[in-house]
C-alpha cells in the first residue's frame, strides 16, 4: 500500500435521531479512493442508520458529510445518488415487482468522473453475473436470497458509483454465496471502485477491507487497520463478538 489515497467521503461529528431517540452520537468516518472501508458492528449498533444518513434517507440533526468538496447533509437523497454515492441495502435489496432487467435499468446512470475505471453497462453486468442474464425476464421477487443479493449489488453498479455502499451483503446467505460475493467485491476493488462496507462478519470483512471502523451504541469505538485490530482481541470481543 504505502500510498495514501485521496478522500472520497468524510463524515464529521454526525448526530442522528429517530423521533426522540438519539441513534448516532457524533460519528466521524473517512472513506478513501479505491479502498474498501469497513464499518463493523453488531445488530442495532447504528451501521444502517449511518449509511442512511449519508445517503440522505434519514435526516441528520447535526454534523457534516463531505463529498466532492460539498457538505451534502441537506442534499435530497436522489441528488446524492445521482452524484455517485450509491447504496445497496440489506433490508430492501431489490424491487420485487420489477423484472431483473428492469431492476438493472432503473438504476442506470452515466459515469461522472474521468477516473480510469470500468464503465458499467448491462452487458458488462451480464458478463460478470451470468445468472442475471439467464433470469433477466423473471420477477426479481422470485429469485433466491443469494441471487437477490447479487442483483442488489449489480443494480448499484449500474449507477456507476463513485462510492459504492454495501450494507451487510452477506447477511442471511449461505457460505458458498458469501464466498462468491467476496470474489465480486475483490474484482470491484481491483477496478478502483471506492467501497464502504458494513458487516457483522469480521472474517469476511477483514479479507477485503483496507481501513476499518467499529461502531457500537452509535459511537465509533475503533478506527484503524485490520492488522492492528487482529492484535487487539479485547476490542473484537467487546464490540463484535456475539
Amino acid at each position, binding site marked *: 500500500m504505502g500510498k495514501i489515497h485521496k478522500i472520497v467521503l468524510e463524515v464529521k461529528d454526525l448526530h442522528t435521531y429517530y423521533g426522540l431517540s438519539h441513534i448516532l452520537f457524533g460519528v466521524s468516518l473517512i472513506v478513501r479512493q479505491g479502498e474498501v472501508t469497513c464499518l463493523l458492528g453488531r445488530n442495532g449498533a447504528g451501521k444502517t442508520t449511518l449509511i442512511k444518513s449519508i445517503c440522505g434517507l434519514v435526516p441528520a440533526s447535526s454534523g457534516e458529510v463531505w463529498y466532492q468538496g460539498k457538505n451534502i447533509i441537506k442534499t435530497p437523497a436522489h441528488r446524492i445518488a445521482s452524484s455517485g454515492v450509491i447504496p445497496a441495502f440489506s433490508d430492501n435489496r431489490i424491487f420485487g415487482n420489477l423484472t431483473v432487467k428492469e431492476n438493472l435499468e432503473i438504476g442506470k446512470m452515466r459515469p461522472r468522473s474521468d477516473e480510469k475505471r470500468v464503465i458499467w453497462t448491462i452487458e458488462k453486468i451480464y458478463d460478470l453475473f451470468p445468472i442475471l442474464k439467464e433470469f433477466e425476464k423473471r420477477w426479481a421477487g422470485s429469485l433466491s436470497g443469494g441471487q437477490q443479493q447479487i442483483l442488489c449489488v449489480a443494480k448499484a453498479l449500474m*449507477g456507476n458509483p463513485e462510492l459504492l455502499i454495501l450494507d451487510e451483503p452477506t447477511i442471511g446467505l449461505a457460505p458458498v454465496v458469501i464466498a462468491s460475493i467476496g470474489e465480486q467485491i475483490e474484482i470491484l476493488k481491483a477496478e478502483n471502485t471506492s467501497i464502504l462496507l458494513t458487516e457483522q462478519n469480521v472474517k469476511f470483512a477483514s479479507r477485503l477491507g483496507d481501513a476499518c471502523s467499529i461502531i457500537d451504541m452509535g459511537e465509533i469505538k475503533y478506527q484503524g487497520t485490520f492488522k492492528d485490530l487482529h492484535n487487539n482481541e479485547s476490542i473484537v470481543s467487546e464490540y463484535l463478538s456475539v
Partner: protein
Amino acid sequence: MSGDIWISLLIAGLSRAMIYFLLASGLTLIFGVLKVINFAHGAFYMLGIFICYSVVKFTGNFAVAFFIIPLVFGFVLGGLTETFLFRRVYKAEHVMQLLLSIGVTYIIADVVKIIWGVSPYSVGMPEVFRGFFSLGGITITKYNLFIIAISLATALAMFAVLYRTKIGSIIRACTYSREMTMTAGVNVSRVFTLVFVAGTALAGLASVAAAPMTTGMLGMDNEMIMIVFSVVIIGGAGSITGALLGATIIGVVEALAVPVLPEFAEVIMYVIVAVVLLFRPQGLFGKSEARV
C-alpha cells in the same frame, strides 16, 4: 324475459362499469404510489360533469370537452391539489390524509353550488352517438359501445405505460420502496406529482365519458366515491387489473340485478364487498402490502 334483453342489459352494465373503472383506476394508481386515499376523487368527477356541461353549452361541441377536460383536470386540478395540499400530508397519519381529502370534497361541492347552483344539469347526447345498433334482437346504444371502447383502450394504454416504459417501471418501483427508488437517483416527489396528475386526468376522462348518460347534480360525488371505493377494495388496492375486474363485477351485477331484485339493487354491491373481504381481505388482485 328473452335472452336478447339480458345481453342488452349486460352491455349497458358494462358501459357503466367502464365509468367505474376509469375512476377506480385513478384512485388505485394514486393509492398504490402515494399511499393516499383521495376521497375527493368523487368530487373531481362531479366537478368534471358540470364543467363538461358548461363547455358543451358554450362551444356546442362535445369533442372539445372530451379532449380538453381530462388534460385540464390532470394538469391544473391534479397538479395544484398535489403540490399545494396532498404533498404536505404524505408523512402524516392516514386519518389526516382522509380529513384533507374530505375537506377538498366539501370545497369542490361548494364551488359547484356557487357556480352552477343547485339545479341538476345534463349534457345532451352528441349527435354522432345517438341511436343504436341492432343485431338480431339485441340493441346496443352507440354511446355504450363508444364508452367501452374508449375505456378498454385506456386500460391497455395504462398497462403499456406501466409495463413497457421506463417511467412505468419507475412508478412500479415507487410502489415497492420509495427509499430504494430515491437511491436509484429518481426524484420521487416528481413521480408523485405525475401520478396524481395522471389519476386526476382519469377522473376527468370518466366525467366527460359519463356526462351524456348521467345527470349532474350535487350529492352525486358521494354516491360515486362509495361505489368506486368498493371497486378498489374488491379489486385490491393498488391494482389496475383489480380495478378493471372489480368495476366489471359491480357494474354488471348492478345492471342485471335491477330487473330481478329491484329492492336489493343498491345493497348487492356491499354484499359483494363483504364476501370478497371475507375470503380475500387484500382484494382479488391485491398484494397483502398493496403494491401495483
